[in-house]
C-alpha cells in the first residue's frame, strides 16, 4: 500500500514539476524535529509517508511545514508530498538512526556444562532510543561477572548493528552473569554453569532393616563439581530372586536406596550413560 502511495506521489511530482515546490533536508536524525519549506500559494494538502507511519495535513502552500520529532522516530526513507490546486510535488529524505542507546542482548544457552569450549554465545544488537538498529560501528562492552570473582570485560565494535563474543564456560559450576553495555543501556543475563556428567561413580553398601542400604559416594563430575540434586542414578541388583532396578534422584549430593537382597547379589550403578563400580554382597551374613 505504501509503495502504491509513493508511486502515485512520484507520478504527481512528475506531472506538476512547475507548480508548487517542496524542499526537505536530505538526511535527518531519528527523533529530531524538522521544517519542510514549500513554495506556491493557496490551500494544499501535505502528506508524509514513512517506513511505519503516514500522515495527511491541510497546509498553506508557500509556508514552512513543521514536522514534530515524534513523527520521525523510525529510521528509513520518507516521502513528503504537497498537493495543491495546480498539482502535486514530492521530495524524498532519509532518517538515520540516532546514537546507540539500547541493546537487545541474547545469550545462549541458559545452561551450559562446565569447561565447554566456546560454549556460550553472547550477541548484542545495537539500537538507538527509538529501537532503530544502529548500523554505524559502535563500541559494545561485554563483561563476565563470575560469582566471587573479579569481573572481566572486553570491548567489541558492532558490525551492521551486531556485536558478539563466544566464551568458554568456567571450570567451576554455578551461575555467571554476563553483561553488555552501550550508552545508557546495561543488560545482564545469567548463565547456569552446571556440572558435566558424573565421573568416577562409586557405591557402597551397608546392612539395613530391609536388606542393604546402597548409596553412592558424593557424586561429582571430572572437574570436582557436585552433580546437581535431582540427577537420576540407576541402581541394579541381581540375586536369586531376580533383578531389582530403581532410579533414584541425587539428594544432598548422594543417591541412596534400601534394597532387599536374597543370598549373593551383584549391585551395579549408572547415571545416564556413565557406569560406576560393581559390588558383590551376600545377604544373611
Amino acid at each position: 500500500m505504501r509503495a502504491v502511495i509513493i508511486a502515485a506521489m512520484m507520478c504527481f511530482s512528475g506531472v506538476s514539476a512547475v507548480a508548487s515546490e517542496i524542499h526537505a533536508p536530505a538526511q535527518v536524525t531519528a527523533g529530531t524535529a524538522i521544517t519542510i519549506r514549500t513554495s506556491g500559494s493557496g490551500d494544499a494538502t501535505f502528506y508524509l509517508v514513512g517506513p511505519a507511519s503516514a500522515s495527511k495535513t491541510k497546509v498553506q502552500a508557500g509556508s514552512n511545514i513543521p514536522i514534530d520529532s515524534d513523527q520521525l522516530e523510525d529510521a528509513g526513507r520518507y516521502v513528503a508530498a504537497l498537493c495543491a490546486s495546480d498539482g502535486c510535488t514530492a521530495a524524498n529524505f532519509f532518517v538515520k538512526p540516532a546514537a546507540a542507546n539500547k541493546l537487545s542482548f541474547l545469550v545462549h544457552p541458559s545452561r551450559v556444562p562446565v569447561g565447554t569450549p566456546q560454549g556460550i554465545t553472547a550477541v548484542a544488537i545495537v539500537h538507538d532510543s527509538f529501537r532503530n538498529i544502529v548500523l554505524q560501528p559502535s563500541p559494545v562492552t561485554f563483561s563476565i561477572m563470575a560469582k566471587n570473582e573479579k569481573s572481566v570485560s572486553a570491548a567489541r565494535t558492532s558490525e551492521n548493528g551486531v556485536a558478539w563474543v563466544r566464551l568458554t564456560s568456567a571450570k567451576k559450576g554455578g551461575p555467571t552473569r554476563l553483561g553488555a553495555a552501550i550508552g545508557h543501556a546495561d543488560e545482564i543475563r545469567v548463565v547456569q554453569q552446571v556440572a558435566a556428567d558424573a565421573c568416577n561413580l562409586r557405591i557402597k553398601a551397608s546392612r539395613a532393616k530391609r536388606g542393604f542400604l546402597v548409596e553412592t559416594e558424593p557424586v561429582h563430575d571430572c572437574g570436582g563439581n557436585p552433580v546437581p540434586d535431582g540427577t537420576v542414578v540407576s541402581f541394579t541388583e541381581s540375586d536369586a530372586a531376580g533383578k531389582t532396578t530403581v532410579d533414584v534422584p541425587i539428594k544432598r549430593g548422594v543417591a541412596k536406596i534400601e534394597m532387599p537382597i536374597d543370598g549373593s547379589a551383584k549391585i551395579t550403578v549408572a547415571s545416564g550413560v556413565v557406569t560406576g563400580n560393581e559390588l558383590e554382597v551376600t545377604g544373611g551374613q
Partner: protein
Amino acid sequence: MKRVFPLFLGGITLVLIILAWFTSGGVARREMRQANTPEQAVRLMLSQIQGHNFDAAYARLSNRGDVDKNAFIREFNGSYGSLLTYSSLENFDIWGLHSSDQESTMRVRLHYSTGVGPLDDVRDVKVQKSGDTWKVFWPVNNATKLPPQVIPVNYLRWDVIGRGAGDEWGVQNVDTPQVRILSMNAIQRPDGVTLVGEVVNEDSVPAFVNVGATLLDHAGNEIAQESSFDKIAHTLLPKQVSPYRIDFPNMRMEKIKNVRMDAKALLAAASADPVIEVNQQKLETDPLGKKVLSGQLTNEGGQVVDIPHVIVSYYDSNGKVVWVSDGYVAQPLLPQVPVPFAVDLPADISKNVQSYHVVVNHFDRVSS
C-alpha cells in the same frame, strides 16, 4: 379400529422386551441361578459383577466371613484413582483347571475396558460345593496395610517460570532441555514396522519428552509419521533414560529407505518423588503360556501412585534394544506395599533377549 392400534403397539413392545431379555443373557442368568456346576458358579458371580450387582456377587462366595465386602468390591471397582476406577468389566472367559466332587479350580480371564485401552486380568479361582450348589472361594486379600504415619519427603521439585508476555524482545528465556536419542532399531513385525530405542535427558533440569519418526521412501518422500504416544516415559529427570516404541501398522520394511527421528523436549515442572523400586524382575512364562517379564513395584515415597505404567526395553547380547513393551498396572501403589506386574514379550523376540531395563512411569489425579 381405535383399540387395535394400542393393542398392536403393546404387543410390539412386549416382543421387544422379550428379545432384549434374551439378548442380554437373561436365559443364561436364569439357568445359572442355581449354579449346578463350578463354571456356572463363577460365571454367575462374574455376570453379577459385570452388572454392578456386587451384593448378589458377594452372596455367591463360600467364605464371606473371611472376605471383607468393601475390599471385594474394590478389587473390581478400583481405589485411590487407580486404573480400575476408569474401567468396566467388558467380558470374561472361564475354563476349568481341575475338578473333584467337592472342589474345583477354574481359571478366569477378565477383560476390562479402561481409559488407556483393554486390560486383561487372569486369576485362578477355587469353587466349593455347598449343599446342592457351588460357591466361589474368594482368596482373602492379605496385602500389607501401612499403619497411619507421617512420611517426610524432601525430594527436589522443579517449577518453571518462562519469559513474560510483556517482556521486550531479546529478554532471555530459559532454554528447552537437551535430550538425545541413544539408539534406534527398526524391526519388521507381522502387523507392521516398529521402531524401538532409548532416549536420555542430558540436561540438569526435567524434560517432557516425546519421540516422533517420519518414514521416507526411496524417492525421499514422506510415507508415514507417528509418535511414541504412551510407549515412553514422558517426564524424564536429569540423566534419566527411557525406552520408546513407535508403531507403524501395515508398513513393510522394503518400502522404507530412511527414517527421520525427532526428539522434542519441553521444560516441565516435575518432582523427584516418588521413587519406585522394581523388585524380583524375571523373564518367565505365565499360566497362559505367554512370555512375560514379571516383578514387583514398591513405592518408596509417601504419596499414593494412582496408575503405574511399566515400560521395559529388552537388549540382545550386543546391548542393542530389540523390543520395548509396556503395561499398565490395575492397582494403585500405596507407600511401601509391593504390587505385582507383568508385561508381555513376543515369543519370537524372547529367545534373543539377554537383559532388560524397566522404567516406571506414573499418572496421578493430582499431577506432580
